[in-house]
C-alpha cells in the first residue's frame, strides 16, 4: 500500500477521564490512526489517502459503522465510477472471506451492488455474487450472513432460478443436516415471495412440485431419521398448503415402531428410529378422541425414555390432552 502523509491533519486527542470503565490497552498505532480518522472525517475529505486510512481502520476494527459509511461516500464521489466500484467489489470480497461474520462488510457489499446496478449502463451480472457467497460457505456452510445475503440477492434481483436450487441440492447432498440450506429451500420453493417461475408456482399448487418436494424430504428422512431439519421442513410444507397431517401417519409409524413396542430396553439397538416421528404420531393420535390414549402413551415414552431432556415439555403436551 502506498504510504500517505497525514501529519497535516489536526485532531485533538479524545477526552480522557480520571476513572473509566473498561479501559482498553490500545496500541499506539491504533490511537494515531483513529486520531487521523477523526480529523479527516470531520473535514469530509474525499481523497485517496482518506480511502487508504479507512482500510487501515477497517482492518483493526470492522465494527466501526461510520468508517464504512465514509468509505462508501468516497467511492461514490469518485470519477470513473464503475471501475472504482468494481475494484471495491474485489477489495470487499477479501474482507468478507477474512471476516465472514462481520455485519458491516456484508451490508457494504449490498450498497455497492445496488449502486453499481442502478448507475451502470453495462450489463453487470449480479449472479456473480453467488460465487462469493458459495466461497464464504466453504469454511462454514451455515454462516448466517452469507445466507441472509443470498436471500436478499435472490429477492432483490428475482433470481429464483435452477442455479440457486442446484446449489442447495449439492449442499444438502454433502450435509443433509444443514438447516440453513433447508431453510433457503423453503424460501425458494415453498414460500416463494415473488412467485418463482410462475409455471412452477402453479405446478406446486397443482401438486407436481409439491409431490417432488415431499418425495425429496422422505428420502432425506430415510437417510437420517433423527434429523430435525427434514421433519420440520415436511411439516412446514403440510401447514403451508393446508394438507391433512393425518396423511403422515404411515410415515411416522415407519420410524417410530410404536405399535410394536416389544424390544427389550437392554438392547442397544433403538426401538424407535426417530423421536420426531413419534412426536408427529402423537400429534396425529391426539386429534381424535379414540386415539388420545395412544397419544398420551407416546408422550410418556418420549418423556421417560427416548427424549428425557424435554421431560417437562412432553408432560406439558400430555397434560393439555388430559384436560381437554
Amino acid at each position, binding site marked *: 500500500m502506498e504510504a500517505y502523509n497525514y501529519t497535516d491533519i489536526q485532531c485533538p486527542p*479524545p477526552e480522557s*477521564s*480520571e*476513572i473509566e*470503565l*473498561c*479501559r*482498553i*490497552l*490500545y496500541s499506539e498505532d*491504533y490511537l494515531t490512526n*483513529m486520531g487521523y480518522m*477523526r*480529523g479527516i*472525517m*470531520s473535514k*469530509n475529505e474525499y481523497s485517496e489517502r482518506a480511502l487508504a486510512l479507512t482500510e487501515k481502520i477497517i482492518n*483493526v*476494527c470492522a*465494527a*466501526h*459503522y*461510520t*468508517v464504512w*459509511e*465514509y468509505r462508501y*461516500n468516497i467511492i461514490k464521489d469518485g470519477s470513473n465510477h464503475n471501475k472504482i466500484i468494481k475494484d471495491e467489489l474485489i477489495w470487499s470480497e477479501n474482507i468478507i472471506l477474512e471476516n465472514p461474520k462481520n*455485519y*458491516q462488510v456484508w451490508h457494504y457489499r449490498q450498497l455497492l451492488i445496488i449502486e453499481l446496478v442502478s448507475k451502470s449502463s453495462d450489463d453487470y451480472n449480479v449472479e456473480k455474487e453467488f460465487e462469493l457467497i458459495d466461497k464464504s460457505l466453504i469454511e462454514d456452510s*451455515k454462516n*448466517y450472513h452469507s*445466507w*441472509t445475503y443470498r*436471500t436478499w440477492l435472490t429477492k432483490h434481483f428475482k433470481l429464483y432460478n435452477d442455479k440457486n436450487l442446484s446449489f442447495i441440492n449439492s449442499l444438502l447432498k454433502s450435509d443433509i*443436516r444443514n*438447516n*440453513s440450506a433447508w*431453510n433457503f429451500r*423453503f*424460501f425458494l420453493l415453498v*414460500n416463494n415471495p415473488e412467485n418463482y417461475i410462475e409455471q412452477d408456482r402453479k405446478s406446486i399448487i397443482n401438486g407436481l412440485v409439491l409431490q417432488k418436494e415431499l418425495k425429496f424430504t422422505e428420502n432425506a428422512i430415510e437417510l*437420517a*431419521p433423527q*434429523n*430435525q*431439519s427434514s421433519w*420440520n*421442513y415436511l411439516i*412446514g410444507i403440510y*401447514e*403451508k398448503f393446508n394438507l391433512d397431517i393425518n396423511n403422515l401417519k404411515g410415515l411416522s409409524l415407519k420410524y417410530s415402531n410404536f405399535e410394536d413396542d416389544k424390544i427389550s430396553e437392554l438392547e*442397544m439397538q433403538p426401538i424407535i428410529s426417530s*423421536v420426531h416421528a413419534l412426536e408427529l404420531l402423537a400429534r396425529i393420535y391426539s386429534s381424535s378422541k379414540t386415539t388420545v390414549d395412544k397419544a398420551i402413551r407416546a408422550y410418556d415414552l418420549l418423556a421417560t425414555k*427416548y*427424549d*428425557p*431432556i424435554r421431560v*417437562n*415439555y412432553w408432560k*406439558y403436551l400430555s397434560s393439555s390432552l388430559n384436560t381437554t
Partner: protein
Amino acid sequence: MVSLPCSLKVAKDNTAKIYDRNGKYHGKKQYNEGTIDDGELKFHLKKHLNYFRMLLNFLPNAFQSNDPIKMSVIYFNLIGLDLCKGVEEYNNKLFKTKKERSIIIDFIYKHLVESGEGFRGSVNLKLPLVDRSNEMNESLKIVGNYDPANLSQTYFALCILLTLRDESMSQRIDRFQILSYLKRCQLPNGSFKPLLDIYGKPFGENDLRYCLIACSIRKILQIDKIYEIEELKKVDINIENLYEYVLSCTNYEGGFGGEPFDEPQAGLTFCGIAILKLINKLDSKETNSRINYHKLVKWLCQRQIWYNKYNKQELDEGDNGIYDNGGFNGRTNKASDTCYAFWCSASLKLLKLEKLINVKGVELYLLNETQDEILGGFMKNRKSDYCDPLHSCLAVAALKLLDSEYVRELKDIDESLVISKDALNFMEQLKW
C-alpha cells in the same frame, strides 16, 4: 456424582467424542455408562465477581477491535456484576467517595452526542466540531456528521446509567431528542437501522435486533406511559409497521429470523418475543391468531441438546459432541453455545413457560462445560480459548432466570430489558 436429568448411554468407543475436530483433548471428565463423573457442580460466585471487576477496570489489547462498540462491553460486565450483587459494593467500596462515582457517571455522558440524540460507542469516535457554515454542504444536503448516535450503544448506555442508579439521568437526557432519532431510524417497512448517515437517512443493516433495541430504549425512557397524549403519538415510532415487520420474520420452523424468510435463530427469536412484550402485543387476540405459539414453544424447547442411544446417529454423523448435552443451540442442528441458554430461557419466560426447560441440563452444561473455574467467567462453548463478557453475563443471567439452586443469592433479572430487577425498579421511579 451428579444426578442427571436422564441416563446417558454412550458406548465405550464413543469416548473419542471428547476430542474436538482438531484432535485437541478436552476432557478431564470420564464419560462412563450411565453417568458423568464430574464431582460437585459449583457456581464460583467470587471468581465471577472478580472477573467482571477486573474487566471493568482494564481490558487487554485484544478488545481494541471492540472499541466502536465499547459501551456494549461495559454493559455485559456491569450487568454481570450487578446480578452477582457486586454493583453496590462497586459503588461503595471501590469508589469510596461520591465524587468518584460521579466521575464514572460523567464518563458515560462523555459518550452522549452533542445533539443529545443518543450515545456513541467510544470516545475515540468523537469528532472535533468543525464550523462548516461557509462550505457548500447545503447543496449536498449534509445534515449530520460521521459521529452520530448509535441505537445499540444508546440502549447499552441507558442500561448502564440505570444500573449505576444515576439520579441525574432524567435531567441530563432529553428523551424527546432520542425518541425523534429513533423515529428517523425507522424504515417504512417498520424495521430499524442502527444510525443516521450524514444525509439524515437510516444507515446500516436492518433486522430484528435493532427493532428490539428501539423498543427497549422507548421503554426505558417511559414513552409508553405518555402514549395516551395525542400530540406525543405523532413523535413516537410507528408501532403498527413495527408489529407487521416482527410478524413477517416468523418462519415455518416456529422461531424468528432476523429478516423475512431468514432461518430462525434463538437470539433473534428472543428479539421477536421481547418486542411483542414491550409493545403490549404478546397476549393480544390478534397476535394469538397470527402466530403459531404451539410451534414457537416447540421450536424453543427443541433447542436443548441431549444425546443418548436413541439419537446416536446424530452424534456420529453430525457436528456436535456429547459435551453439548444440556446446552442450547441457536438453530436446528447446530452445537450448544452458552448464550442460547439465556436467549431460549428468556424467550420461554416471556411466554410464562420457562418451567418447560430442563434446568439440571442447563446447570450441567454451563457449570461443567463453559464455566472457567480458575479465573471466573464463562466461555461461548468448550472449544473457546477464553471467556468473554457477553457469555459470562448471559450464563449468570440464564441460571438466575431458571431459578437454579446454585445462584439463589443472586439478583433477579428483568427478562425483557435484560437488567436487574433493582435497576428496573430504579427506572420505574425516575421522574421525567
